[in-house]
């Protein structure tokens, strides 16, 4: 058969890429189970011991008076608060933009599209200056408020409502005696579950991974989110910063600790990723691909 080589080729290409995507993740999961020296000598994808793992955690946790826990907590706090605000703001806004009749509706829609395309990083400096003027610098609000502005969420909610919610349903609710607010709360909102999941995913992941803004607006390392914290940790790792050699010894941050720090830092996002793969596609493609 002619098809067999083609099939094999296909599988070979897919497998090669699978190795490329999977090996770094595997390495990261295994690295904290080994001592720093074993990372060099032992086979890169071998398992060390749980003892080493707990040792690595011990070192990491001790670093700078438990600051690692603080960073994770900060990240959760910033990302969850901002995502909560984002949801509370963007779902009603998307609804209003999809079904509203008020002057400026189209202008708002266009502005949202434009701002959505402007990458957040381009606005970090002016936002820094604004926050400075509002005397918010160094406060957690200086991270949460800019994070809460998520035009992509508004756009997703708008697309969802405009394509997936039949206007007849809203008319029915009005005739059934709902006020405008009741129409939203009792009909439009319960039907928004798919888009809520989608907005939550994108907003949470974006907030969790944001590095530039918190680096710019926060000065105290006790307030850092984990992303910025990791960079702090990196500069304390002697293998990447021989200048830190002596320092590395005293704080016990070596490659296994750094790998463990990285690994823990991605757990929340990994969970979100795991639960959302299917919803993500259904939401994105199903809702928006309407030709």
């Amino acid at each position, binding site marked *: 058969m002619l098809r067999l080589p083609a099939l094999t080729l296909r599988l070979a290409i897919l497998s090669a890429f699978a190795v490329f995507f999977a090996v770094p993740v595997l390495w990261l999961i295994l690295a904290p189970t080994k001592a720093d020296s074993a990372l060099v000598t032992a086979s890169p994808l071998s398992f060390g011991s749980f003892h080493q793992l707990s040792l690595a955690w011990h070192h990491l946790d001790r670093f700078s008076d438990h600051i690692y826990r603080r960073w994770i907590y900060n990240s959760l706090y910033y990302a969850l608060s901002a995502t909560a605000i984002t949801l509370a703001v963007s779902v009603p806004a998307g609804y209003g933009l999809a079904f509203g009749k008020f002057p400026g509706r189209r202008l708002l829609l266009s502005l949202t599209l434009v701002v959505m395309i402007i990458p957040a990083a381009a606005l970090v400096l002016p936002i820094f200056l604004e926050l400075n003027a509002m005397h918010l610098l160094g406060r957690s609000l200086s991270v949460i408020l800019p994070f809460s502005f998520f035009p992509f969420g508004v756009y997703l909610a708008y697309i969802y409502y405009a394509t997936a919610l*039949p206007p*007849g*349903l809203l*008319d*029915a*609710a*009005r*005739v*059934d*005696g*709902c*006020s405008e607010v*009741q129409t939203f709360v*009792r*009909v439009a909102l*319960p*039907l928004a579950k798919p888009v809520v999941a989608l907005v939550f995913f994108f907003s949470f992941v974006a907030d969790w991974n944001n590095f530039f803004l918190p680096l710019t607006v926060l000065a105290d390392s006790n307030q850092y989110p984990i992303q910025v914290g990791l960079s702090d940790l990196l500069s304390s790792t002697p293998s990447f910063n021989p200048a830190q050699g002596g320092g590395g010894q005293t704080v016990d941050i070596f490659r296994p600790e750094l790998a463990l720090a990285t690994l823990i830092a991605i757990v929340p996002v990994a969970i979100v990723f795991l639960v959302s793969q299917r919803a993500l596609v259904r939401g994105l493609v199903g809702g928006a691909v309407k030709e």
Partner: protein
Amino acid sequence: MARVEFDDVSKVYDDGTRAVDRLDLEIADGEFMVLVGPSGCGKTTALRMVAGLEEISDGTVRIGERVVNGLTPKSRDIAMVFQSYALYPHLTVRDNIAFPLKIAKLPKDEIGRRVDEAARILDLEPYLKRKPRQLSGGQRQRVAMGRAIVRQPAAFLMDEPLSNLDAKLRVQMRADIKKIQSDIGTTTIYVTHDQVEAMTMGDRVAVMRKGELQQVAPPQELYDNPVNVFVAGFIGSPAMNMLEARIDRGGEGLVAHVGDSELALDAETLSRRPGLASYAGRDVVLGIRPEDLEDAALANGGPRLRGRVELREALGSEVLVHFAVAARQAVTEEMRELAEDIGDDRVLLDQPAEASLVGRFSPRTQVRENELVEVSVDRRSLHFFDAQTGLAIG
């Protein structure tokens, strides 16, 4: 329960479309009023103005004695059944039906009682726990009805509630809705473009065209005495045959010249259409219902038309025979508009010298396609319309 009244009501959409034009219509308390007309004639718009879903551009709408122009749907005390049913997908059948009552904050036991009652009337009891997507089309339709009747509103508004059902179910639901309505006696405005629904369900039927009301009458009256060419052509299936004819004096009274045939109008016809006398020597539009045409071989007497059979459709209980006669098809206003719309006046100019008619023949007829046929015309219910205005000549 209440009467509903349109008083000189117009609707102009933002883009300038005049969807309803000076509508005057009064629906009596407890009446089943059907709004019928071709697509885009403004039926839905009229209904939505009663519901409060569409602002009223001009005129007043009253429900009961209350002017409702400025009121929200909430405060109008009406229930509506939508073409798409508009069931809330996240709620069970029970919660869908209970929804308006919950919004109105009725006591729990009262809600339960009313929902059970509605479910019983509509045979929905086995499905109360299901979600709408687990129901068939007919069941969904019933839920939509249920949601309307539990409210015990002043009026029901229904916008083509049966158009998504298959033919058989539609016939059954037609009867069911009619029965429910007459049992509970709630004023109902029912929109459809299906004239069979209109004829079978309405206490009265209002025919609309391009935003304007043409005629309001009980179904039989509408069928027997259409006020103009439009209503005559719209009501009845197959549609009324329309021919150009010329009225002349002759014999004992008048004759209608249709192509090269001659229909003598006897005294009985003339006494029913006295207005015809003044049309002697003028062109008119002659309307003949298909059931007033019969294979001459099976009929006794009456004037005759000669034609050639083009198509024979046997329906079992009757045979629809399409045949061409040497006469000119009346150009109705729709055809004129169509021609204007597509910018093609050949439709008007190239009128073939042959008109195609449809007759509803007895199944015993022996006519065959492409053969000549003699058709007998029942003179008792011929319709005549002014060739210029299209108005019926009474």
